[in-house]
């Protein structure tokens, strides 16, 4: 892992960071257009304004409430979003624009999804074979079995089909897939969802393992606590927008989250007082004018309701979308 020297960046170091950039997402939006009854059309603004940066060998967590369209985020980056949706914005992979053609080439090779649902494996195909298809080198079977051992699976699982595996095993198989592939970027969709406390720690350890493999990991989760444990950076997702990106070092040094929504999430954690938050989010059908969080925000002023705050850069990697950030 490399360490940023944020305070006195030289031109050379800036370049180095730039070169190490794996994925950069700017102004990403995903709109689903669907026909209502009759001839009416309905637009769902699932993702409105999303920003993200991730470097090689880095874990970035995207934290947001359940059902806020986080899974579609992964689809949009991979370019496998539903046919009736429109994706707009700029995505760069290794400093090069990610075109449709390039995406096709990268899917499964450079970028790999770890799905949320345990029913994501082909129910009629051997587990081992499904892992094997991701490998480039020869002598697959042996290699796959070695990887299975590495993630704590019995090598015999190779010949089983998914229905014979428990949910925990399937999540390990997903990790094995990530290790088996030569993907540089792993997008893990809710990897800890539905796991018990112990398994969560095991899963986070395995995500760290991917990181040590110099892979970049985007971890999409609703679990801020898990995100705090494993991520280098945390991007907070609200109403389809990135509202804050914070470096964990800032938090470790005793710093606080800067956005009111992130703070509310933080305060809702058991160890921080368990203060429940109003979890309602603006409906995806709404077109927002002011700040998306204005209705729930304790600090909202008139300005927040009229003017949409832009995502301000605080330091090289940190951003926040609030007029009164950090106050």
């Amino acid at each position, binding site marked *: 892992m490399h360490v940023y020297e944020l305070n006195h960046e030289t031109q050379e170091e800036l370049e180095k960071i730039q070169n190490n950039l794996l994925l950069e997402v700017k102004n990403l939006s995903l709109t689903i257009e669907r026909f*209502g*009854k*009759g001839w*009416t059309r309905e637009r769902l603004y699932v993702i409105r304004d999303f920003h993200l940066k991730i470097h090689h060998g880095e874990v970035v967590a995207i934290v947001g409430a359940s059902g806020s369209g986080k899974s579609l985020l992964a689809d949009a980056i991979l370019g496998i979003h539903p046919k009736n949706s429109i994706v707009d914005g700029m995505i760069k992979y290794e400093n090069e624009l990610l075109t449709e053609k390039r995406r096709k080439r990268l899917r499964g090779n450079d970028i790999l999804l770890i799905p949320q649902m345990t029913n994501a494996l082909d129910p009629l195909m051997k587990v081992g074979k499904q892992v094997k298809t991701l490998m480039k080198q020869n002598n697959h079977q042996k290699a796959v079995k070695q990887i299975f051992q590495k993630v704590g699976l019995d090598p015999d699982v190779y010949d089983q089909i998914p229905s014979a595996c428990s949910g925990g095993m399937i999540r390990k198989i997903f990790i094995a897939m990530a290790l088996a592939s030569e993907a540089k970027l792993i997008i893990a969709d809710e990897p800890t969802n539905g796991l018990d406390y112990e398994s969560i720690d095991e899963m986070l350890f395995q995500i760290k393992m991917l990181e040590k493999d110099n892979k970049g990991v985007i971890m999409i989760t609703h679990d801020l606590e898990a995100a705090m444990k494993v991520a280098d950076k945390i991007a907070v997702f609200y109403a389809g927008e990135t509202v804050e990106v914070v470096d964990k070092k800032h938090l470790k040094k005793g710093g606080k989250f800067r956005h009111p929504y992130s703070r509310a999430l933080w305060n809702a954690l058991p160890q921080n007082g368990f203060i429940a938050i109003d979890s309602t989010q603006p*409906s995806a*059908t709404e077109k927002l004018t002011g700040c998306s969080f204005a209705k729930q925000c304790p600090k909202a002023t008139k300005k927040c309701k009229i003017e949409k705050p832009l995502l301000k850069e605080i330091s090289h990697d940190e951003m926040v979308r609030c007029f009164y950030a950090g106050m």
Partner: protein
Amino acid sequence: MKNQYLSIDFDSTNYKRRILWKIIGLVCLFLLVALSGFWIGEEQIEANMGEKHLSPSLDHPFGTDWLGRDMFFRTLLGLHLSWKVGLFAAVISTVIALTLSLLSSINKFFDSLVTMLIDLFLSIPHLVALILIAFVLGGGVKGIVIGIAFTHWPSLTRVLRAEILQIKSSEYVHISKKLGKSRMWIIRHHYLPQLAPQLFVGFILLFPHAILHESAITFLGFGLSPEQPAIGIILSEAMKYLTMGMWWLVVFPGLSLFGMVVIFDALGNNLRKLLNPN
């Protein structure tokens, strides 16, 4: 926010209204065909040796046959018979289905009895059972109606049985039972109102099958005498005159029958959408 709901509401009534119009249109179309049968007298389909083997024209839109009978009116009479057979068969089938499904709700024994009966009737090919029943009843419209009625109830019975099972386990039926309401009371006040849409849609959707099977069994020569204008008989007679190139004897009656089946099919499906949007 409120407006949005309003607009959805408006849309769904609009949607329902469009379906309603479709249904009205289909019913009108059906009535046009069905009622015309009542007006056709013997004289319209009388043999007229002066007008044999005529291909379709303005005077005889469906042409005439080897006896000079007007095929348009014969076809209309055939369709008239079709929907009447369909009606009788569908009514009997629906009554059987309702009775059996209610019977199956009494207890496990009756339920397995009904299931066995369903299995029994599904294990003989439809047409074979039809031939057997039509044969036993010695022909006539009666044999066909009973034959079709007694072979078409199983699928509807299955649907109704599943529906009743669901209603039976619902809270309000339990409460009614605890209040000491009789079985008949529960059937009248809980089952029947809930089953009514299913029953009606099922009833209408029996028609297409009944009509197709009526034409098949009359085509095979069971039941009706050759003079009777049933679509099946018209088509089987027409086959004898195929080599003379009288294609219109086959094409128009068949197309008309197809049309009638489609009308009932569309009617049933639109009713389903209207009464039970799922």
